[in-house]
């Protein structure tokens, strides 16, 4: 029995110790910030099936190293902490709690992926931690009423889907649309935007929808079905690997629809070239960034600046990977936001400033596309422009489209 008594005693001692500890913790007001440093947190998939995105987290780190080498922001160095979440929501929750509770970062940014961010959405808002420029194209990050601490970054997938739908309604009489999409949140989001954009006509115009799983080796079967459906418009919602296959296969079997390729796979170097430039001629997409493998930008100031950065600070990163360009833009935006905060780096001011960005230009955004936010608008980039592949480059056409100016 003596063991049991000791057990109870230990419990009591533990309880007292905890009460004593709880009082001491609440003193600090500005979390993650000292006179010489600001601590910021991020999660990325460095391992696991989505590790291709891991380069974003590394490129972000490389940019902050550059910032620190140049003396930091307002005299503060950036202490960038990034953890591997393997693109798995439970792991993201764990790592984000580590960042918030243990490392005590000032804010979170660029946490990657829709399911991982969904898992921490409520938590970060309860904890009142700024959760900004998340790396996903879902729509729900722009909801400042219910989630005032969360903010998106890139144009969302639904908006892009709507842009294509509007084009079809306006320019293609007798459209018969076939859709290929990835069976997950990303694919479904594009699909929803497109269907919403077509409105009542959706039922009539869409003749066939085909899905695939990321684990599928090929999508040949789906393409064959789409051709057979008689579709003359093809909305291609696939990641690069399958986009190449889709372009190649539809060309091989002699299916020549009006082909909308989602922005996710618009890379010239990793998608269009492998699929064949001739086969890619006539593709349509909506862009908001300069496509770094597109020859039309090879003398562009922003592009050259990025190349110089990559060579000096991230030499192991690939120069044909759009993700590295994406990260460069975001990192600059983060640095801009911190700078705009001045000396008040409280979490309240960080989210306030992030929601007060006016016409910020980033080196690798298309000319005319700017970052704008407000307390009621947590979607930084909302503009895109249509482009057609002319066999050599993405030829931009029409005006810059604004999602909110319907």
């Amino acid at each position, binding site marked *: 029995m003596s063991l049991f008594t000791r057990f109870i005693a230990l419990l009591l001692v533990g309880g007292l110790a905890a009460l004593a500890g709880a009082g001491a913790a609440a003193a600090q007001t500005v979390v993650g910030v000292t006179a010489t440093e600001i601590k910021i947190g991020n999660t990325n998939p460095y391992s696991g099936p989505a590790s291709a995105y891991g380069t974003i987290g590394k490129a972000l780190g490389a940019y902050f190293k550059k910032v620190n080498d140049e003396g930091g922001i307002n005299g503060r160095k950036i202490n960038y902490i990034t953890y591997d979440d393997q693109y798995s929501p439970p792991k993201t929750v764990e790592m984000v709690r580590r960042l918030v509770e243990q490392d005590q970062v000032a804010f979170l940014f660029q946490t990657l992926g829709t399911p991982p961010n969904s898992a921490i959405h409520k938590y970060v808002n309860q904890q009142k931690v700024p959760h900004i420029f998340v790396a996903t194209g879902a729509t729900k990050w722009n909801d400042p009423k219910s989630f005032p601490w969360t903010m998106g970054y890139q144009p969302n997938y639904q908006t892009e889907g709507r842009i294509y739908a509007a084009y079809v309604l306006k320019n293609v009489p007798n459209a018969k649309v076939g859709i290929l999409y990835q*069976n997950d949140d990303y694919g479904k989001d594009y699909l929803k935007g497109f269907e919403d954009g077509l409105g009542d006509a959706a039922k009539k115009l869409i003749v066939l929808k085909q899905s695939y799983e990321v684990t599928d080796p090929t999508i*040949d079967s789906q393409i064959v079905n789409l051709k057979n459906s008689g579709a003359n418009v093809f909305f291609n919602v696939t990641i690069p*690997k399958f986009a190449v296959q889709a372009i190649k296969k539809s060309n091989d*079997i002699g299916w020549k629809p009006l082909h909308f390729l989602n922005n996710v796979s618009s890379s010239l170097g990793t998608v269009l070239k492998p699929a064949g430039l001739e086969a890619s001629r006539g593709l349509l997409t909506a862009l908001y960034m300069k496509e770094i493998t597109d020859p039309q930008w090879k003398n562009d100031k922003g592009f050259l600046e990025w190349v110089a950065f990559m060579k000096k600070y991230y030499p192991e990163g690939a120069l044909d990977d759009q993700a590295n360009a994406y990260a460069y833009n975001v990192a600059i935006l983060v640095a801009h936001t911190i700078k705009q905060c001045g000396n008040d780096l409280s979490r309240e001011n960080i989210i306030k400033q992030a929601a007060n960005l006016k016409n910020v230009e980033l080196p690798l955004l298309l000319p005319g596309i700017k970052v704008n936010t407000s307390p009621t608008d947590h979607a930084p980039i909302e503009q895109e422009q249509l482009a057609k592949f002319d066999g050599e480059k993405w030829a931009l056409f029409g005006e810059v489209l604004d999602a909110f100016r319907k």
Partner: protein
Amino acid sequence: MDIFIQQVVSGLATGGIYASLALALVMIYQATDVVNFAQGNMAMFSTYIAWSLLQAGVPYWVTFGATVVIAFVGGLLIERVVIRPVEGAPILTIVIVTLGLLVIFTSVAGWIYSYIQKPFPSPFPSRPIKIGNIVFGAHDLGAIGITLVVLLLLFLFFRYTTLGLAMRAAAQNPVSSRLCGIRVSWMLGLGWGLAAAFGAVAGMMVAPVVFLDPNMMGGIQIYAFAAATVGGFTSPLGAVVGGFLVGVTENLVGTYVSFIGTELKLTVALAMIIIVLLVRPSGLFGRTTVRRV
């Protein structure tokens, strides 16, 4: 009718992909009684080696031969260095070691070559072959041909050579084989080497279709498991037939059973595997083992 034939043709093409890796899985299972989870990723890594050689300007068929040899030696070395220390341990221990290899190969490939997909050339013409309205990819036909050649070699090797016989014996009954003077441990190494070589061939045939990236074999290995299961893990012929069967069934189900559509086609393919197993617990071509009490 055209659509039916076209779906069967494209099912055969993807089935050929499954079959080629399934062959390597069956090979190693026959030779060592172990399922190697790293098989696909070893194949992926071999393909990267081939890619490096091609980048260096080595002609295709020289690269092909060199890669097969490198893969063979690599597989042998892995068995000697990594697997050997756990040779006598329970099967599951070895399985976990192969899982360790799987993540190491993925990670190292990503580290060296980055995760961006790379195009990989095919030795066959890129122009598709058309018969009426039906289109064949020349590469698909060529890849199926190579898979069948490998199958034939495997069959001849296990059936007619003393070495093949010794290998089978070593896997099935190591103790008796040792008594007969077979160097069991080396036979296992040889098995790994051969499986890795077949894997390399599979990788080089798969890469032109799905493009080369460190996760290239992930999905394919799952289907290769399915193919080997349907066909029977003890039969190379079964693995190839299983591969084609899985590829074609999946396509036809996705096309013709409308309430399933493409969203559940994987599920249906898997359900069929389980049904096949229930009717023939060792796969279509597998041998049922009888155990003595």
